[in-house]
């Protein structure tokens, strides 16, 4: 019993530490500047709100439409191409949203090849024909849906795969058709996972700056940056960010309330599966098209465009790319391990003793995902620099040389920021994995005299292996793509591929940015393929 208690305390301490940046941001609320707020309220605030809500709604619909059917088809049905589609559907995850926005703009803009071709073909000039305006709210929704649906796909697929077959079989034996069993059993059972994926996609949408800024869509996040950069007002920017956070907390609470006390456990010991639903005739074609559309537009088209730019127009890669790739890879890997380890400890502490302080602290720590990276970075910088100053004072009072900025000036700051920003990703996956394991297993383990940590290691971790790997993968790829926090917090002479892409792209040298963008995609593919191999191995066939 003492050990469980210790675990709770440990979890609260970790979560509190990870909440530091969020607390810093929220604490700015006390110094609100009424004049500036009135100005924002009178001029732009309603625009920010409406656009952000429309964006959320659009992307939410988009990722569900793209993610859930593909997850269902590739995990439950059999059709030709299913195997490779099941991993290929993850590929858009490796594509940063701002990069896909740049490439599609290059293709579909008035000056791009498609419209130029239309004009040459028809002899019309600009304005005399209708064409989809890519730089718009609609464009932003499409772009983000295309690269964010894999969150839903991954989580839903892991849930479908981990679902014990028996419940579907029971459904069928009770007279349900397979499709009926899907609607009434499989989907509701996968709901926590689907919601987890959806909320990741939506939080990422809220935090996005690069895409909406490029498309000229004024959202809450562009407002935060306008306040920070334009007004030079960190406090007001932080206050806007805190309001954003309040909104996210509200959404999360609504979702929790709607699920209330529903429990989602399945007999995790049953590993055997029913056969896949075989598809025949036209259904095969439909299934393939449903799976090909997101793959095609989320990956193949933009990646081909990048490749063409890289090969024909960009300056050739220098050797410094090896260093860039290594920096990106090692940092992402390390951050993924740290974030997922912490997520496992936190989720497990919550499961073993779901008392209020633990739950609140964990929920708090997870909200970093909804905040733009720049804001997180400021929240990280302030407490770390404060600790650094303390350390320096300590050293100097002991008569030693100042150690410099050990925390805020080193990779520690970056790792801290990544963990804060992406803990939610790890938590989402790990928790939905844990939720599916019956509490009776914990009781059994405990009655056999195992400590909570031993139970975690021997029972839970092996059972939710694919959830853990999913978490590692997503955090890895997210850190790989992460830009704003990296930009602010990195130490001297430390570059990553994302920084390189940003610097060239924001200097309006898209072609030169292409090789680095492709490198991000390639490095991001490594864990995607590893994950696929691991999930495939889980299921003997």
């Amino acid at each position: 019993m003492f050990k469980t208690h210790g675990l709770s305390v440990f979890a609260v301490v970790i979560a509190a530490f990870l909440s530091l940046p969020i607390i810093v941001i929220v604490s700015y609320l006390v110094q609100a500047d009424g004049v500036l707020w009135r100005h924002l309220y009178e001029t732009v605030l309603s625009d920010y709100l409406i656009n952000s809500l429309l964006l959320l709604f659009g992307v939410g619909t988009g990722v569900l439409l793209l993610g859930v059917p593909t997850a269902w088809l590739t995990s439950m049905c059999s059709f030709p191409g299913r195997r490779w589609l099941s991993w290929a559907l993850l590929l858009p995850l490796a594509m940063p949203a701002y990069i896909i926005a740049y490439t599609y703009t290059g293709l579909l803009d008035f000056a791009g090849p498609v419209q130029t071709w239309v004009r040459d073909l028809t002899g019309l000039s600009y304005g005399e024909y209708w064409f989809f305006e890519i730089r718009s709210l609609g464009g932003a929704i499409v772009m983000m849906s295309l690269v964010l649906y894999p969150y839903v796909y991954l989580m839903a697929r892991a849930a479908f795969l981990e679902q014990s077959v028996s419940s579907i079989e029971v459904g069928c034996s009770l007279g349900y058709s397979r499709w009926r069993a899907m609607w009434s059993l499989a989907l509701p059972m996968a709901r926590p996972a689907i919601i987890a994926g959806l909320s990741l996609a939506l939080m990422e949408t809220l935090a996005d700056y690069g895409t909406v800024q490029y498309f000229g869509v004024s959202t809450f996040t562009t407002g935060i940056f306008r306040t920070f950069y334009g007004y030079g007002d960190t406090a007001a920017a932080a206050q806007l960010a805190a309001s954003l956070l309040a909104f996210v907390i509200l959404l999360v609470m609504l979702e929790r309330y709607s699920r209330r006390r529903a429990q989602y456990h399945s007999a995790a010991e049953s590993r055997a599966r029913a056969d896949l639903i075989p598809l025949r005739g036209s259904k095969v074609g439909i299934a393939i098209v449903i799976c090909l559309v997101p793959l095609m537009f989320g990956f193949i088209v933009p990646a081909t465009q990048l490749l063409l730019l890289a090969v024909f127009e960009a300056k050739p890669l220098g050797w410094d790319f090896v260093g860039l790739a290594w920096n990106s890879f090692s940092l992402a890997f390390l951050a993924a391990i740290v974030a997922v380890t912490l997520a496992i400890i936190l989720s497990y502490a919550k499961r073993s003793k779901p008392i209020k302080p633990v739950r609140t602290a964990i929920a708090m720590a997870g909200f970093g995902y909804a905040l733009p990276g720049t804001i997180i970075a400021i929240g990280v910088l302030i407490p770390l620099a404060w600790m650094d100053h303390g350390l320096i004072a300590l050293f100097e009072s002991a008569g030693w040389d100042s150690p410099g900025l050990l925390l805020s000036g080193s990779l520690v700051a970056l790792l801290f920021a990544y963990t804060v920003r992406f803990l939610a990703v790890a938590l989402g996956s790990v928790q939905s994995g844990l939720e599916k394991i019956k509490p009776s297993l914990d009781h059994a383990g405990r009655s056999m005299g195992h400590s909570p940590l031993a139970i975690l290691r021997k029972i839970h971790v092996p059972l939710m292996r694919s959830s853990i790997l999913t978490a590692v993968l997503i955090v890895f790829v997210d850190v790989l793509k992460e830009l704003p926090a990296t930009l602010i917090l990195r130490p001297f002479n430390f570059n990553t591929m994302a920084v390189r892409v940003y610097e060239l792209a924001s200097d309006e040298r898209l072609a030169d940015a292409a090789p680095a963008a492709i490198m991000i995609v390639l490095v991001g593919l490594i864990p995607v393929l590893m994950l696929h191999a691991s999930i495939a191995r889980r299921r003997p066939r």
Partner: protein
Amino acid sequence: MRSFNLISSLILSAVTASILVVTSAQASGEVNVYSARKEALIKPLLDQFSNTTGIKVNLITGKADALLKRLQVEGSATPADLFITVDAGRLHRAKEAGVLKPVFLPLLEKTIPKELRDNAGYWYGLTLRARPIIYAKDRVKPAELSTYEALAGAQWDGRLCLRSSQSVYNQSLVAATIDALGAKATQSWIEGMVKNLVKAPSGGDTDQLKAVSAGVCDVTITNTYYLARLINSSKKADQSVAAKLAVFWPNQSGSGVLGRGAHFNVSGAGFTKYGKNPKQAQALLEYLASESAQVWYADINNEYPVLKGVEISSALKSFGDYKMDPIDLEILGQNNRQAVQLMDRAGWK
């Protein structure tokens, strides 16, 4: 899982090693730079500096306000010696924030014109960036153009493209206009231009140029080096975009504020208050304002040099001579906040 552990411990030790390498970069014979100028547009010069002087340069690039925040938070412990930005307003902001210190550099006081540096020596301008009107040659006669203010006129209805007001270049343009016309007239000017916009602002300066070239609109306002870059591009498509465009220098004649000259801004650098390597920082700053560095900026990024008599690129020459608005660049910083407010009010997205 075993091999997994092995890999992770290898990576862990490698990353730890790189942390050590990174923190050791503060010994003597070095200078630490926080730069809002992109790496590609400054690293070659820094390397050149290191080669000739033996002083190592450590660099962090980022957005000006974020770097400024970092300087503020780091306070007396900051490792940074020099703060480089691409906008005078941000230099002013840094001065106001108390992170810079005044340094008297006799050499630069002599070579850099007075209006391109801070009076007290808090910062020095390093390159000039002009922001004139760009128009489509086939649809606009230069005689139709006169001033920035005239772009608010009804004859430009549905013919104007502008970059977002999020861009600091536009914020500085408005800040300068506030100084010339006052807030009220500036706001009606912005309102007029917003009414004339053919589409909501999006993309960067290059995108505006492409829009004018493709016939989406007829006039826009951009920095000249983006056009010069298209002219010098090896891509056919870029060259043909540039071939349809020409520069018009606004506000060149006329009395009073109407003839104040074209808007320009500087990139520049200032010494940080708590820099630990003042000598090396001074050497670097003097190098960046030296003739060879100025020629490099003009050649590579088509920016106008701050030194008189430095050869400019042929693309810049083709744009012709112009009269600059002799505004005190500090004012760009002082008016920035008000400029953003006016743009918010006038609906310039």
